[in-house]
């Protein structure tokens, strides 16, 4: 069903079924003018032969792997060059939407500074191009010489590729790979394990809820799947049916869009959740078993209102009203996530927020929270190999590693992400990096293996389980790879083979097909109806005669997609996959509050992922660098958000260069004074200040990760703690011309004043009916005050 794809309106020659790929041949779409193209770019594609006419648009389905959300996309190709990315209208996660980062995958693909040939550090100390054989030989020799001392760091989201890395690591005799991922996801899993008894990222049914309290989850910014949650939020708030309350210290984009924003004191999110629980239980509106389930989690009683208000810095009346609204709501839901849970006690805070769902009866009901289940293809590919390690394990391993150590880093940039690893990288015998760019880590590599980007790859992705419905999405390459870039999975297999422990598959695609084939066999063997980690739901394999046909059908159909019926509630604290017996979980309210600020310049630093740069991977795309951050409106580079009150006190004006001093490092960057920042806290986007990463990212902005203390960990999660960091802030100077933050549309003069309180669309009435075209038939006055909900557009 691809009616929505008729957007181009080009006559269509449908070639495949269900969006596997679509071919739109156009008679009339000639190159209008001006598109200069180099002939050498028109390399014959070894991947597929196009049936299209020259100059005609061919739309190919692909999967966006810019983050783990797994949005299905369509790529417009003309003459085998990718031109445009659109969301697949019936995409499993995104339903037609694409985010800014997703669009920019094109600029990753065609980046002028891509690594397109293997390189090896020569005798001169410089990286020199070598053949794939030589590069693999060098890497494999080092691995084979010291398999125990080999550390694999895999940056891919969880799913089949991570499974393959686990398998490869186990095969060559190396310890399990370190899964380089944001702390937030690990904390969320751990919190879910504590609250729900199942260590999966919870799935939220925002769209069908009517009252959502998001404790810290910046789901409209850059958290899990902003496209999916954006659409869900739009449904939630359509006609102002439902309400979103954002409990977050930083005024994120989500907070900006929320119907109500509670700017809690940083690190007190969990306390607020506990306080709310106390009020909700006192309201007596919830069934006894829900109360019991909640109370069983905690040894302590929830804090009282006054204590909560005091700890959170929020007016008690507001908390009370919030609790009352929550209690009255028909289908309330509490979400948890974000930088708030990356503090040392993040797991406790996250669990406290998630546990509210038990009380609200939101677990497993429409408009509530579900288990984030998948088809388990990571494990299917991993086989018997052990689970991947959390990021902090890298630091621990490196600390104990000698000079013979081998580091294999695939699609991750740990040197940008965490300070203090440089020395270990220097010490390591051989650093092998699989990357498409010279990022901070790649620049220190001894062997660089160029990998393909999203659109060049065979893709098998298990999307972020935001919907609670399992899926495995598969897509073929959309365009020919640039230069000699290879699939990272293929490289992993080639490394294993070169190291003398070959796996049965020549490439990643074969590995995935083999896993599919195995899943088919296991499902048939389980004899229908069975489900679980081994077998697939029987409905998915019904109709296929044999494994071969099943694999063919699955890949042709673009993967396996579950149904709404497969959604289920988490196992529950009593019975789940928690190893230990259920018992009291840490209560954030009884943990000590983060140390009070020392002196007037001590601020809580809130590093956040902006929708431009994400964790830093967006920094090399000119589109994203030049994209104004929606709130600070800064383009190109980093900034620190300072509250108006603090700025007045410290004499900081927008644009001033300020110095942030952490325990081990200091950074200097321009200040943006905003009325929305919670006094006492400052926000800095991560992802700037790359040592390298191509011409658009190199030394652009500053890397706030430098302020992190690598020894601080999120308790119980094995992740580096990024939250609750104390820094000193001091004003240095007015910026020089070249230091001024690039603020959208606001020149030299207004860099200091951001218009506040003047929304011009509220300043005057709309005009009367138009004599010329008559298209506006009614005089529409903007209604500032609450108007009765209207449904007219929805009809």
């Amino acid at each position, binding site marked *: 069903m691809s009616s929505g794809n008729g957007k181009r309106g080009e006559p269509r020659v449908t070639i495949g079924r269900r969006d596997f790929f679509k071919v739109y041949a156009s008679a009339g779409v000639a190159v209008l003018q001006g*598109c200069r193209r*180099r002939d050498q770019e028109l390399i014959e594609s070894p991947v597929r032969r196009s049936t299209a006419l020259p100059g005609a648009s061919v739309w190919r389905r692909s999967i966006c792997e810019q983050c783990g959300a797994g949005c299905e996309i369509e790529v417009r190709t003309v003459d085998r060059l990718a031109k445009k990315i659109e969301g697949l209208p019936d995409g499993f996660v995104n339903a037609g939407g694409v985010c800014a980062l997703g669009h920019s995958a094109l600029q990753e693909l065609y980046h002028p500074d891509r690594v397109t040939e293997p390189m090896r550090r020569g005798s001169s100390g410089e990286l020199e191009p070598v053949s794939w054989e030589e590069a693999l030989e060098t890497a494999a020799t080092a691995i084979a010489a010291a398999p125990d001392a080999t550390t694999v760091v895999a940056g891919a989201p969880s799913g089949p590729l991570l499974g393959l890395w686990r398998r490869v690591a186990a095969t060559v005799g190396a310890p399990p790979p370190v899964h380089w991922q944001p702390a937030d996801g690990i904390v969320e899993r751990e919190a879910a394990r504590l609250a729900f008894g199942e260590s999966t990222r919870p799935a939220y049914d925002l769209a069908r809820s009517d009252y959502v309290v998001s404790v810290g989850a910046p789901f409209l910014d850059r958290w899990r799947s902003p496209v999916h949650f954006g659409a869900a939020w739009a449904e939630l708030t359509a006609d102002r049916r439902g309400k979103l309350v954002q409990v977050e210290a930083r005024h994120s984009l989500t907070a900006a*869009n929320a119907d109500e924003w509670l700017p809690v004191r940083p690190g007190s999110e969990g306390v607020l959740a506990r306080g709310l629980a106390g009020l909700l239980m006192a309201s007596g509106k919830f069934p006894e078993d829900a109360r019991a389930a909640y109370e069983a989690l905690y040894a302590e009683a929830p804090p009282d209102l006054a204590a909560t208000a005091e700890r959170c810095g929020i007016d008690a009346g507001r908390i009370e009203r919030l609790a009352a609204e929550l209690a009255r709501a028909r289908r309330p839901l509490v979400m948890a996530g974000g930088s708030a849970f990356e503090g040392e006690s993040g797991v406790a805070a996250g669990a406290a927020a998630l546990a509210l769902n038990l009380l609200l009866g939101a677990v497993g009901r429409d408009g509530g929270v579900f288990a984030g289940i998948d088809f388990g293809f990571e494990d299917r590919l991993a086989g018997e190999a052990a689970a991947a390690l959390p990021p902090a394990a890298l630091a621990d391993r490196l600390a104990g590693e000698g000079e013979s150590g081998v580091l294999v880093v695939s699609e991750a940039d740990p040197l940008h992400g965490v300070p203090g690893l440089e020395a270990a990288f220097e010490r390591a015998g051989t650093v092998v990096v699989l990357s498409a760019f010279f990022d901070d880590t790649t620049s220190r590599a001894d062997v660089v293996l160029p990998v393909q980007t999203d659109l060049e790859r065979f893709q098998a992705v298990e999307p972020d389980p935001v919907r609670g419905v399992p899926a495995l999405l598969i897509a073929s390459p959309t365009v020919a790879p640039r230069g000699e870039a290879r699939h990272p999975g293929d490289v992993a297999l080639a490394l294993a083979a070169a190291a003398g422990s070959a796996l049965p598959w020549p490439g990643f695609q074969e590995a995935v097909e083999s896993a599919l084939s195995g899943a088919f066999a296991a499902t048939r063997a389980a004899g229908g109806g069975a489900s679980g980690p081994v077998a697939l739901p029987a409905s998915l394999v019904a109709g296929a005669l044999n494994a071969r046909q099943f694999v063919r059908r699955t890949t042709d159909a673009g993967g396996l997609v579950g149904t709404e019926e497969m959604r289920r509630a988490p196992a529950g604290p009593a019975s789940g996959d928690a190893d230990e017996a259920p018992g009291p979980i840490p209560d954030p309210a009884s943990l000590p509050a983060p140390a009070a600020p020392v002196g007037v310049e001590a601020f809580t630093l809130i590093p956040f992922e902006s929708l431009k740069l994400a964790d830093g991977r967006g920094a090399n795309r000119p589109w994203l660098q030049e994209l104004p951050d*929606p709130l600070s409106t800064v383009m190109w580079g980093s900034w620190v958000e300072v509250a108006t009150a603090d700025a007045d006190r410290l004499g900081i004006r927008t644009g001033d260069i300020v110095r942030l001093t952490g325990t081990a490092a200091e950074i200097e960057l321009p200040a943006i004074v905003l009325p929305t920042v919670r006094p006492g806290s400052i926000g800095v986007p991560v992802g700037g200040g790359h040592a390298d990463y191509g011409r658009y990212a190199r030394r652009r902005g500053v890397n706030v990760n430098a302020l992190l203390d690598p020894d601080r960990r999120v308790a119980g999660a094995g992740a580096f703690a990024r939250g609750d960091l104390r820094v000193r802030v001091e004003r240095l100077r007015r910026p020089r011309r070249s230091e001024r933050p690039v603020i959208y549309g606001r020149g030299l003069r207004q860099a200091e004043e951001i218009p506040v309180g003047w929304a011009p669309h509220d300043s005057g009435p*709309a005009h009367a009916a138009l004599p010329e075209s008559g298209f506006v038939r009614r005089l529409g006055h903007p209604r500032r005050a609450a108007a009765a909900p209207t449904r007219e557009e929805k009809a």
Partner: protein
Amino acid sequence: MTRWGMAIDLDRCTGCEACVVACAAENNIQTVGEEQAREGRAMHWLRIERYYEGEFPNVRTRFMPVLCQQCGAAPCEPVCPVYATYRNPEGLNAMVYSRCIGTRFCANNCPYTVRVFNWFDAEFPAPLDSQLNPDVSVRPGGVMEKCTFCVQRIQAGKDEAAQEEREVADGEIKTACQQSCPTKAIAFGDLEDPDSEVSRWAESPRAFSLLGDLDTRPGVVYLSGTEWREPAE
């Protein structure tokens, strides 16, 4: 007769800026670099304006995507000495790059400040130029440009309909910004057709025209204004 129009539901807009990048990708909009951007020369055809109301902690944030309003009585048009911009029969402010001599008068006279100027020739270091949309010209330096309502998509849509000997269906033609909007805050279509989605949105009591009292008769209608209210028990 067709009058292309757009309706933007501000209550649905999150300010995620996917549309801004989609627009750049679709329309070969050059990125000007940090130095030029600092000079105020970024070239986005579509921007998300952000306004704050109130003071901490009771700050309301409002986002408003602002693009060429495709005015029915466009102030930019008559001031052009060379007819580089005029109102085409389907209600678009057509911009003819090859005629533009760069007086920038149109941009001065645009009350919405949505016109952008190519201060230099566009640079797309190879192979970034591989991405360029072949349906859209790359504008040379010294030329004004602005949102076209993705006129190349409109043209392709009409061509397809003509080939199939039918009318263009409502919703068949999508602008790049509309298509990638995760929250579907944008409707596009024929304002002359009373049954089109955009016409229905435009009839909303929440609808208003930006700077409506100038009577530029915009082809873009904004919807805004409701707040959450707790439903009665």
